[in-house]
């Protein structure tokens, strides 16, 4: 159609699409899917890190961690607001999350087992998020792109903090060094899976790339992350758990081993180490909060009716 051609031309010219603009239904749906998954990931992502707030080993680290988890809640809220510009209600999206219908980043279905996990999550997981989001900051949908710019700034800060924790542990006592190496061993592969299936198994990508919803393929972004991260690991003297990892001078890239895609799909389908626990925790919070939300609504209604009287 002519509208579609015009829409695609605007995107090709590098223009952003705004809420009031016409857009193909599939574009809108894709954006709702991506943005809500992103928002859900922020919300569920509070759980593994929140798990260590009560045990953070110094006041400074405790405060940084609370602030980080608080930022994640803020990101979630901000992106849920973004989906509202596409005509989707936050309550609707939250219901989908709670019912298990909606997806969120599988990385948060892995458990945090030691304090070092907090450092490694900041370094790896926020690092991977930044690689994704730096690109999304130039996505064609204006509200999402602008959200990404703001969020990326904070994620950069989180990543630096995470790396600083890792560096401190890696230069610490033998027990601390062991702890951080163990955490790196556990988080490396799941982090690589964060970029999604390999391009050959990712059928959506063509159209998404053309519409600049995505701007690089999963494999391209994954490679970018690896290339950024390997030298950082070397700098703090921790090893990455991949015997096949090697530098390829021709492509100026770090070649890495085979990802366990069986594990990837198992976790996506709900059988990861913590899928059940994460959903249960969110549902518990929601259910136990029902009376609070009801009270706030009742109070607001009373206040309004008093005002009108």
């Amino acid at each position, binding site marked *: 159609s002519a509208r579609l051609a015009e829409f695609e031309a605007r995107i090709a010219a590098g223009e952003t699409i705004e809420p009031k603009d016409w857009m193909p239904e599939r574009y809108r749906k894709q954006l709702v899917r991506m943005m809500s998954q992103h928002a859900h990931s922020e919300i569920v992502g509070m759980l593994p890190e929140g798990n260590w707030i009560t045990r953070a080993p110094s*006041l400074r680290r405790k405060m940084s961690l*609370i602030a980080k988890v608080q930022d994640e809640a803020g990101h979630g809220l901000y992106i849920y607001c973004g989906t509202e510009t596409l005509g989707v209600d936050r309550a609707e999206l939250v219901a989908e999350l709670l019912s298990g219908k909606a997806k969120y980043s599988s990385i948060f279905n892995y458990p945090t087992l030691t304090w070092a996990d907090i450092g490694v999550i900041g370094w790896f997981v926020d690092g991977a998020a930044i690689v994704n989001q730096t690109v999304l900051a130039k996505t064609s949908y204006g509200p999402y792109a602008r959200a990404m710019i703001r969020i990326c700034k904070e994620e950069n800060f989180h990543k630096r903090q995470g790396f600083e924790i890792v560096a401190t542990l890696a230069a*610490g*006592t033998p027990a601390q060094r062991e702890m951080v190496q163990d955490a790196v061993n556990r988080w490396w592969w799941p982090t690589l899976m964060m970029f999604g299936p390999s391009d050959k198994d990712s059928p959506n990508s063509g159209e998404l790339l053309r519409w600049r919803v995505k701007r690089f393929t999963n494999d391209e972004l994954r490679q970018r992350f690896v290339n950024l991260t390997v030298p950082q690991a070397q700098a703090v003297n921790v090893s990455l758990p991949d015997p096949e990892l090697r530098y390829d001078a021709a492509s100026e890239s770090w070649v890495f081993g085979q990802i366990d895609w069986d594990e990837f799909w198992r976790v996506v389908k709900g059988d990861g180490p913590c899928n059940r626990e994460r959903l249960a925790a969110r549902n518990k*919070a929601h259910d*136990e909060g029902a*009376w*609070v939300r009801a009270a706030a609504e009742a*109070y607001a209604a009373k206040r309004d009716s008093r005002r009108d009287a």
Partner: protein
Amino acid sequence: DNALAEYLLRLGDDRLVLGQRLAEWCGHGPILEEDIALANISLDLFGQAALLLKLAGETEGKGRDEDALAFLRDAVEFRNVQLVELPKGDFGFTIARQFLFDAYSELCYAELARSTHAELAGIASKAHKEIRYHLRHSTDWILKLGDGTPESHARVQSAFDDLWRFTGELFESDDVDRAVAEQGIGVDPSTLRPRWRTRVEAVLAEATLRVPNDGVMASGGRRGRHTEYLGHMLAEMQSVARAHPGAQW
């Protein structure tokens, strides 16, 4: 100065322990906005605790910094009131406790901002700005819960009933308090009670809640005599720090 170090420990421990209880909500709040708000308040309390404990350690002069005081003392060495160490309970309990504490803490910081101890006055002055936001937040919620639904009314009333006997301790004063008050450094908590009572009564009345009767009040926190809850909280809080003696983080 022993009295001052002890006084600062009391101030710092109240905020440290309450901050920890609030932090337990992180990711588990009734609405996302409250996850953010409670985390924010918790963060302020930890910030205040860090400054107060640092000053306590310096005043004590035994080389303990704020982390040593937070992570390497046993329950009986803590000087907080029992009110702040009670388990977080439901959201109504958390908010009622927070309101009772905020109303006290706001008055306390307002006085301490005029302390003759410049450093303490500086901490209090900054903290006073934070606590005013906290008090507004908890007051708002007391109104919403008290005058919301029958269920919320019953829950928050029951929280106040359970909490009331822990409020006496906020206003106890002993030689330590009197010593720092005489020097113009600290505030004698007993002098804050009438204003606290007026404020609490006003908010509870507006929230259609009943002020519980004063009965026998719990006591002991300032002398290290706590509830059994504190030890469990500290076991968790101190676990990593204790597992790695001497490590840097």
